[in-house]
């Protein structure tokens, strides 16, 4: 295989190899020269830089955006939290003991803990050890003034979130928590680091990208004898002092890249109204929703019981925090206006009435007869009206006012389940409203398709939709569930003349509303019915919601009582007070105001309140009264017309 001729080396090859050798030698010599330049010629400069004047790269944390309520009231902002840390490697070994002693005396830290921590990091002497978190201003000044007595000790300023309103709107705010791995992977490019805080839940989560801001950087030279000082201005923002403790002028190696604060968030919430709603819900479990019916702006979104998001502000698990997160009943973390779902009960009739009128199945004067009970085609099982004696013959207006079940059983049968489902969704029930907050529930309006999908692998008789289910559905019972927010959207549709609005919390996010969904005649008739429900006129009979009446105001409303346990089960209790709390019905009342500016839609839900008219309606009345008295004094209320 070997062909000697091809292996032959030509003359001159040795010389060429040698030339390669020279080239390499030259290159290596060049390296040697550069080393000489760096290490011998510029030795002074570099060793100064490295030893005595160290370059310190400091990340300037960005402020989180401030959250304002409607009138500029601050809901969440930032403050400077100052921690004290020690870097053992920067403290001469013989001074360490004295330093720890001083820290113990001045800052009141546990000496043993500190010693333990320092010992534990002996292998990595240049790591930061937390001495004390969140020290007072006095302590901070003391530590900073005595830098020369505390080598290796320094203060670090962190911006920290501060929630100013306590439990008011607490659940809406959400809270901040440490970023976990999944979130970090998602947001890596956006400049998040391990240990950063990120919004979890509520507004903090939904608008995280707006609120987050962008960190800056600063390069400062540090003198061996002093520490660079980070001071904070009145608003808690860290400012870089240009002198250190000894008075050396600090040398910024490069212009600092400033942090860019997060954007401010202006919410539509009226804090006074929110507080009033919280007060009204005191002692109960439930929620109140107040929307501007024409625009969808959320004026109040109250839920009880609530919590103060400040509980989550400092790191580490506290008892309170664990109790909240573990879901102890009653659950304080769930917002009952948009996350909890309830059967709508009689407030569902608003939708049915509107649907029936719009579909021309009935008109304002169509009368059905209520005998106290109803049977499909007159035979078989009977469904009762809440009024066992029957209402007699009534039209839709009166049916809404008296909340006659039988009328709506009939109407529901005529509409048929598919149209009921369609109109529900049209008015905002059973679908997410699209509000700009995290965690909204969609609710459910059961229908043919839903049932078939649910029982997909079951025999046909189980998958089929039965007329009896339509009957149940017509008065908002059965498997259907909605959120109070959705019910408010439905009410707003009536109040504003037939448009569905999308509720929004951030002022810049709205208003958004659909095209006109219902004709004026439909709206007029439904409004009449809802007005009659609230009106107090003589003679009787009056509607079910008269406890929401305010003299001189055109208030429309609808009561609702959503069953939790079956009526037959409850019949064994003689008096309402005897019924155990968890078995009582939920009390609904939804209302709208037509003759004031702005027009609002209000929904009150009291869990287990048992009777909508008597429990929920007065609350709505108080809310409405308070609102207009107080709105009159505020310049921020103007109508912004929708699209």
């Amino acid at each position: 295989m070997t062909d000697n001729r091809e292996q032959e080396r030509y003359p001159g090859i040795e010389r060429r190899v040698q030339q390669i050798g020279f080239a390499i030698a030259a290159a290596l010599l060049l390296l040697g020269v550069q080393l000489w330049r760096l290490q011998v010629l510029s030795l002074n400069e570099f060793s100064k830089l490295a030893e005595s004047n160290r370059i310190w790269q400091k990340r300037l944390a960005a402020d989180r955006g401030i959250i304002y309520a409607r009138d500029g009231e601050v809901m969440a902002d930032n403050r400077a939290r100052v921690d004290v840390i020690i870097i053992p490697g920067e403290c001469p070994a013989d001074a360490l003991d004295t330093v720890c002693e001083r820290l113990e005396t001045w800052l009141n830290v546990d000496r043993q803990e500190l010693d333990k921590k320092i010992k534990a990091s002996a292998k990595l002497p240049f790591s930061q050890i937390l001495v004390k978190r969140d020290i007072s201003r006095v302590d901070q000044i003391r530590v900073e003034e005595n830098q020369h007595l505390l080598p290796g000790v320094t203060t670090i300023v962190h911006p920290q979130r501060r929630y100013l309103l306590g439990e008011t709107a607490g659940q809406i705010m959400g809270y901040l928590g440490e970023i976990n791995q999944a979130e970090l992977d998602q947001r890596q490019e956006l400049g998040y680091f391990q240990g950063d805080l990120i919004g979890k839940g509520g507004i903090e989560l939904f608008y995280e990208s707006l609120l987050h801001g962008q960190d800056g950087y600063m390069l400062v030279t540090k003198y061996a004898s002093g520490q660079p000082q980070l001071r904070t201005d009145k608003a808690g923002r860290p400012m870089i002092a240009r002198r250190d403790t000894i008075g050396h002028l600090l040398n910024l190696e490069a212009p600092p890249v400033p942090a860019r604060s997060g954007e401010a968030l202006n919410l539509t919430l009226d804090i006074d109204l929110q507080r009033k709603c919280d007060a009204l819900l005191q002692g109960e479990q439930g929620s109140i929703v107040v929307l501007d019916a024409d625009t969808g702006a959320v004026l109040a979104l109250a839920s009880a019981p609530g919590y103060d998001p400040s509980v989550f502000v400092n790191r580490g698990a506290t008892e309170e925090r664990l109790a909240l997160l573990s879901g102890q009943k009653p659950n304080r973390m769930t917002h009952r206006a948009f996350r909890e779902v309830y059967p709508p009960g009689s407030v569902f009739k608003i939708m049915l009435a509107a649907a029936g009128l719009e579909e021309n199945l009935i008109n304002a004067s169509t009368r059905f007869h209520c005998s106290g009970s109803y049977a499909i085609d007159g035979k078989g099982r009977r469904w009762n009206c809440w009024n066992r004696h029957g209402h007699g013959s009534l039209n839709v207006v009166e049916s809404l006012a008296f909340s006659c079940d039988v009328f709506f059983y009939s109407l529901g049968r005529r509409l048929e389940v598919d149209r009921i489902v369609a109109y529900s969704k049209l008015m905002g029930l059973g679908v997410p409203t699209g509000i700009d907050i995290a965690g909204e529930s969609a609710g459910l309006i059961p229908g043919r398709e839903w049932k078939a999908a649910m029982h997909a692998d079951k025999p046909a008789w189980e998958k089929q939709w039965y007329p009896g289910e339509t009957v149940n559905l017509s008065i908002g019972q059965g498997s259907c569930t909605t959120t109070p927010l959705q019910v408010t959207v439905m009410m707003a549709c009536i109040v504003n003349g037939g448009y569905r609005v999308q509720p929004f919390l951030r002022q810049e996010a709205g208003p958004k509303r659909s095209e006109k969904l219902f004709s004026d005649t439909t709206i007029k008739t439904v409004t009449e019915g809802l007005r009659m429900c609230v009106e107090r006129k003589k003679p009787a009979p009056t509607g079910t919601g008269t406890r929401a009446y305010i003299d001189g105001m055109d208030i429309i409303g609808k009561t609702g009582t959503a069953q939790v346990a079956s009526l037959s089960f409850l019949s064994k209790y003689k008096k309402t007070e005897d019924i155990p709390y968890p078995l009582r019905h939920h009390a609904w009342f939804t209302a709208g105001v037509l003759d004031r500016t702005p027009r609002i839609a209000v929904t009150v839900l009291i869990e287990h309140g048992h009777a909508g008219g008597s429990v929920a309606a007065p609350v709505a009345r108080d809310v409405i009264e308070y609102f207009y008295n107080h709105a009159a004094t505020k310049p921020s209320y103007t109508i912004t017309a929708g699209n």
Partner: protein
Amino acid sequence: MPSLRRFISHQNVSVRLLNFTNVMRVDIWLILNVLALAVIGWILMYSVARSASTVYLYRMILFFCSGVVVTIFFVSIDYRFLVNWAPLFYLGSIALLLVVLFFGTEAKGSERWINLGLFRLQPSEFSKIIMIFFLTWYLTKIGEKIRKLGWFVVTFFLVGIPLALILKQPNLGTAASLAPLVFAMLYVAGCRKVHLVLVLLLGSMLVPVLWLEMKDFDPSVEKETQTTLGLKHYQKKRIYAFLHPEYDYRGTGWHTYQSKITIGSGGISGKGYLRGTQTKLKYLPEHHTDFIFSLLAEEFGFVGGVMVIALFAIMLFRGLMFARDAYDMQGTLLAVGVVTVLAFHIFVNIAITTGLLPVTGIPLPFLSYGGSFYMTVMAGIGILLNVPLRKKEVEQQNMPTSIANVEVYRRKG
């Protein structure tokens, strides 16, 4: 007749594929040199462990041991066999590069690995060794024809294919290491100097192209820019940071800036073993891989740095000596190839740490942490050790015993 047998045995030299006795006959000086460098590598890794983790040290020792196996293999095998099969390896490496391009896992934004579960396969490292063999095969095959422009140019195309694939990964560093390899091997193979000069002139025309590339570059705009050379944003940022040292300390300029401080502050005799503050305080990232030399210079000073460069130099020159005195063309070319690749890494890595070149990922032999590269280096050392053995073997088999047979054996070259 004894002489006849020897005559025959010369013509058909009995080729034993793997001859482990070779291990006994290798050059002792190169071995000592390599050992010294390996030990220095461990010493430095121990220092790294103080501010990072001891796992690096243990793994480095592991790399060395695995590397020894690789070296033994390359020492024992008859290099002519490998050269003859080089074209196959060449095609194989291209296939692997294609595979990694489509199926590789990303690491730090570039596809370089194929994850085989237990370990990761880095084809671009193999291609360095394979290219050395392949070019040797090609250049010895065409022999004198290399003086012709046509064949000369073909060489570049042959190298260009894997180079383009590596560049696509994108792995600028490894791709760049192939360039000096080609030039050196062509030169030693006997090409015409004129041709080389022409190619270099062509290459220098890259400069205005580069200027065009960088002309409108604004490093603060974070999107991909127009590029004729296929440079990515971060690569342009590195070039920019190199040209404008005061820009963006925290990001792109940080490495070079900190490295210079690290080295410079080492002074003549260094801060002392285990006392390097820059590296301990995490001012210098990546100091266990690409910036290991900075650690060396910081802790052992100018003296230490020059000593290590000297050790490298001795290793390289010894390799070149083998090249010069090799028995055949193959041996010469192989040795030159290995030396060039090693020299490239040594020079570029130290140049980067001292701030003479912009930052790219080029590891330093024996000192930088990294398994795949360690294997490449040890393979190269094995080849170097192997080259002079062939001559010894031939000499051994051709000891003239009678005057009549002297004619048969002619020393060539």
